[in-house]
């Protein structure tokens, strides 16, 4: 089982859109896939029309008082399940901080999912704290959507610096360009490598597209209502690249 955390310190970078589309692609490829919505805003849960509620809250889940399997919901797509968001996750740092041996608990929790899933996508909240640190330690890859702007590049530097302290247990960091608008000079120049990124990005980039925004109205992955469109193909290409990186 591979755990892929979708994360950026910065919000609004197309993180949930990436999680949803990448997970949908993985399921289409025959992987039994789970999305764990860790963002208290519950955007991923919203996209799949699943009630953003986990019985007992995040605390119960982490302390394994209740099997996560009981909270998992099937999406409308075969092979793709969702562990919904819960509003209690807004205190995730506090909960993790108060829990004894949170890393070990989280590892055990994830281990229980191993038999059921090949692929788990974590839709992480845009923050940096104890919780993210623990999540990074269980992830195989950290997929970082990055808007090609100077500020985003700086954020990537901070993430790299933060991960440096983790030594051996750090996941593979896989940044990719998100919401790329080729009409903008800055986007174009960064994407074309004129400004070197602290970590090499993946080849696939997601274009800025109204189709991605329409996911909110359709409440579905892009490929289901705009198959073959540019963003749909871009997400597929991105998914394949991540899979190749992890194998």
């Amino acid at each position, binding site marked *: 089982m591979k755990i892929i955390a979708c994360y950026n310190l910065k919000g609004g970078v197309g993180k949930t859109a990436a999680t949803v589309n990448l997970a949908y692609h993985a*399921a*289409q*490829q*025959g*992987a*039994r896939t789970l999305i764990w919505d860790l963002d208290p805003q519950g955007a991923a849960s919203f996209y*799949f*029309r*699943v*009630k953003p509620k986990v019985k007992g809250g995040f605390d119960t889940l982490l302390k394994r008082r209740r*099997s996560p*399997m*009981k*909270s*998992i*919901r*099937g*999406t*409308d797509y*075969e*092979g793709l*399940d969702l562990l919904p968001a819960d509003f209690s996750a807004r205190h995730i740092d506090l909960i993790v901080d108060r829990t004894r041996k949170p890393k070990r608990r989280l590892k055990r929790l994830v281990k229980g999912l191993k*038999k*059921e899933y*090949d*692929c788990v996508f974590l839709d992480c909240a845009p923050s940096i704290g104890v919780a993210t640190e623990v999540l990074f330690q269980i992830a195989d890859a950290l997929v970082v959507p990055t808007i090609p702007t100077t500020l985003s590049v700086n954020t990537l530097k901070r993430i790299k610096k933060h991960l440096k302290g983790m030594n051996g247990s750090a996941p593979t960091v896989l940044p990719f360009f998100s919401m790329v608008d080729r009409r903008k000079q800055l986007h174009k120049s960064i994407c074309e490598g004129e400004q070197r990124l602290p970590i090499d990005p993946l080849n696939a980039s997601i274009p800025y597209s109204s189709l991605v925004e329409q996911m909110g109205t359709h*409440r579905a992955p892009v490929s289901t209502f705009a198959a073959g469109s540019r963003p749909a193909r871009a997400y597929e290409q991105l998914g394949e690249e991540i*899979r190749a990186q992890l194998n």
Partner: protein
Amino acid sequence: MIAPTGDVGRSSAVGTDPDAERHYALASPALGERALELLRARFRTRDDALLAVTRAYYDTFDRRLAGEDAILCRTLEDGAHSLRLESLSGGLVRRLATPIVPGFAADLPRGPFHDAIAPLIDVRRLLQLVEITGSVERASVLDDRGKTTVRLSFEQWTIGSRADRIHGADITLLTATPVKGYGKAARRVCELLEAELALHPLPPGALLSVFGVAPQSAATPAATRPAITRDMRSDEAIKRIYASLLETIVANEEGTRRRTDPEFLHQFRVAIRRTRAGIARLRGVFPVRTMERFKREFAWLGSVTGPMRDLDVHLMELPAYEAALPPEARGDLEPLRTHLELSADREQVKLEAALESERYARLIKSWRAWLRRPVPMRTPLVDARRPIEQLARERIYKLHGRVLKRGSKIDDQTPDEAVHDLRLDCKKLRYLIEFFRDLFDPKVIKQQIRALKQLQEVLGRFNDFSVQQIALADATHEMAEHGRAPLATAVVVGRLIETLRGRQQQARDEVRGRIQTFNTPDNRARAEQLFAPTAPVGTE
């Protein structure tokens, strides 16, 4: 065991999981319409699609998937093909959008779907069990957020492909599939259907039987052990052994001819080889002239079936070859696969011709007639009337001695031919012991076979790697002759041959140690106890 992505199980009085998929066989299509109407009236539903669907179910001839509660289904829906690995007791395990027709595991694209199926079927070929065509009307039961909680499908099937609707027996099904985590909604739907329309769900795993697929097919047609006793006359006992081998040959003939699965040809050939080993090692029991003729004819049968088996083995080795190469070079093996497949198609034609030939028919007929003929009361052949136990011990003992002697002469400098000769002797010894294993103490004979097997394993490996190198070299040579050998392919094959040479050497280095392990005082004493002749050798 395969776990479907169903909800956490709960058992009910009828023994069915209430959260698993339920199929209802309906008496008429009208009943299905009524059921949908009823559900539309009581729940929030959405009509999804009405599709023309073709489904074909696949498993290996020995039902390896069914043994793991699984089945593979190839569907054509809305112009798109996909493969679905399903749990027999209901529910999807994995799905892959691909137009590929199932065959061997290696035919599937690399990925989680391949990885789930490959260990289940191993080297077997997936065969179509049944094909059904029909129309599927899909609907969803929704919750107040518009989220699907139960998938419904109203299916009208005909057995057979669209072109050949032979059976004409129409089957109407209503299927309710709960979405994980929404078991309560599914239970309400099913309760309503069962209460208002008096529907009964099919028992779990019974879906395929509705389409006329028998729950289990005939098991592998491998050899059955002939009934022989210690004091049986040798000629009588040996005829029984040959007769059971003949049964195996005949049982695998059809599968070999139709190339259902490589296993049929393999079993076919093993039985031939055993028969030949028997004829060669159990001389003096039957008239020489009779046996000479059969020996010649079985040798012919062995030689005409050999090339196809070699190609089968080669094709089965391809995934291992690929794994030995770096990922970027794997595609370069494709021309080799194509070449091997073409050669196999050609060889199969020859093999079929051989099996349909007069010569083959005559051999089987005369061999069977001879086996059925009662053994003569009086015979000038001394060994014919000796108790089989005596003869068996004598022949095994002699061959065992030869294996030990040959083995003791082998060191790291001995030419490879001597190792090959030892391998062949070990093989014959193994066949002899297995012919007569019922005459010995089962526990002790098992230990003896195990010891021999360990020696055979390394000798087999040594031989396989050597054969593979030659076969690869031959294949590239042939490809070059036909102008089908791209440089990249020649390069990877060259690399593979190097790897195989290394592995062969590794096996060669192990040979001496294994011989020593086989030739321990314990093993020798056990062989002595088992096989040393009880009566003076060669006389009665």
